[in-house]
């Protein structure tokens, strides 16, 4: 009996065992290529129509971004940032190429955010691009190859980029949970009764923007929360726990998968309830937390190894 309980505890404990991050070169290559495809969506394609930056934000605090109003300049920036992103994805001169793409993206997004309204949809994706660039610069410090290291970071740098991006995603969720606690004097998870007004507001915003109507699930949830307001806390607590403990996903691949699926379900639920999809966040969770590339690749490698052993 005691042996059984000990074995069970050991099994549960092993779920949380810290396993230092390992990433095969092929995995790092695929993840970086797909990530570049995601980051491509951040590059501006047209000049801004807004006349200025009345509420300077981000990079606009430090420099005049008026050049983003000129169509010719933006075309040139867009083309060079795209070429730089492709070169960076191929591993060529990453500190320079990724740095240029990052500058163009941060400049254009800063301009948009300087109109007095802050949106958060593309923020995490840009933070991940920043993390990737920082990892590529960090590789210079680690490299003994001098100029060659600047031009070609190599597999070690790529693995570090993947790991730093993963850590950035985890940090964003934990920080979001900390902000909730700080803003509400640690009472956020227990404000379930107020959750209903947020859902109703989101439905009305959707109607006011697109004449959108809530789906069956959203309507049912509103009715259920109207009848039983305390159930709101039952919805908020698991969501909060997933966000706050997102850093546990860094312990090992199994927890990364579990948190990836949990957070993805959280986003899907938010989308179904309030029409807020945060598509870029979902893409990043798929790529770096759930990471089918790793699981499929590992399964194929194990199958090949078994086949060879049998032969």
């Amino acid at each position, binding site marked *: 009996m005691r042996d059984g309980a000990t074995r069970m505890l050991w099994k549960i404990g092993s779920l949380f065992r810290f396993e230092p991050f390992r990433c095969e070169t092929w995995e790092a290559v695929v993840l970086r290529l797909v990530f570049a495809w995601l980051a491509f969506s951040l590059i501006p394609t047209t000049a801004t129509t807004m006349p200025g930056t009345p509420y300077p934000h981000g990079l606009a605090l430090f420099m005049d971004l008026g050049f983003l109003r000129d169509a010719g300049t933006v075309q040139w920036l867009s083309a060079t940032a795209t070429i730089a992103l492709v070169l960076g994805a191929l591993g060529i001169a990453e500190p320079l190429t990724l740095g240029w793409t990052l500058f163009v993206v941060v400049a254009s997004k800063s301009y948009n955010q300087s109109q007095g309204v802050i*949106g958060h949809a593309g923020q995490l994706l840009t933070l991940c691009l920043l993390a990737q660039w920082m990892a590529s610069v960090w590789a210079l410090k680690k490299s003994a190859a001098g100029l060659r290291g600047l031009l070609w970071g190599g597999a070690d740098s790529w693995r570090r980029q993947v790991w730093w991006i993963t850590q950035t995603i985890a940090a964003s969720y934990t920080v979001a949970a900390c902000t909730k606690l700080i803003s509400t004097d640690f009472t956020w998870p227990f404000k379930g009764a107020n959750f209903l007004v947020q859902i*109703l*507001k989101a439905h009305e915003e959707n109607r006011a923007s697109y004449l959108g109507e809530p789906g069956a699930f959203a309507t049912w949830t509103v009715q259920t929360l109207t009848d039983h307001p305390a159930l709101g806390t039952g919805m908020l607590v698991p969501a909060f726990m997933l966000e706050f403990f997102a850093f546990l996903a860094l312990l090992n691949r199994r927890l990364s998968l579990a948190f990836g699926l949990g957070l993805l379900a959280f986003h899907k639920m938010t989308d179904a309830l309030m029409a807020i999809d945060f598509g870029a966040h979902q893409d990043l969770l798929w790529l770096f937390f759930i990471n089918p590339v790793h699981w499929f690749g590992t399964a194929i490698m194990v199958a090949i190894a078994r086949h060879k052993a049998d032969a």
Partner: protein
Amino acid sequence: MSSAYPNGQAPAPGKSAPAKSGLMNLRTTFVLIGNTAGFFLVMAVLMLSIGDQFPFSHFPMYATLPESTFCIRVTDADGKLMPVQFAFGVQSSILKKQMVRELKEQKDKGRMKLVSAPPPDIARECGRRVLEWMLDHRPAFDPALVGKAVKLEQVTYTARKGAVKEKVDVLAEGFVKHSKPAP
């Protein structure tokens, strides 16, 4: 901040150092976590301390969950809802954020105490500015709308004693100034 390993890669299973036990093992684990996940801490501290300055953010969306919240909508002169994304290319949530910013500015000037409970005259003043912003910067997609009257309404939802109350206030009225075909 760097990896615990010289090349950023952990050793393959079976090639790692011999396992230690007890406190040493725990200490090694903490050092490994600190060394390999240090970037997590760096980013978390940066996000929390810098706050909302692109690309950093402390992600304050739905961080307060107050008893009361509101949304902004636009109607025609007869009170018929105009879907702002289809009519002007702007989302209702953007108009709300503009409204909150206007209210915060009034609070910073000392004209009111709570953004969530502005005096009606200040709410109408802020609403007028939000409508002006929309009509100036977001031309209507349909040329037939130019010259037509529009109203900016605030719909407030308040949770009290297990029930939600809805209240609608007209904040401002104006006329569509110009049009531009939808992209």
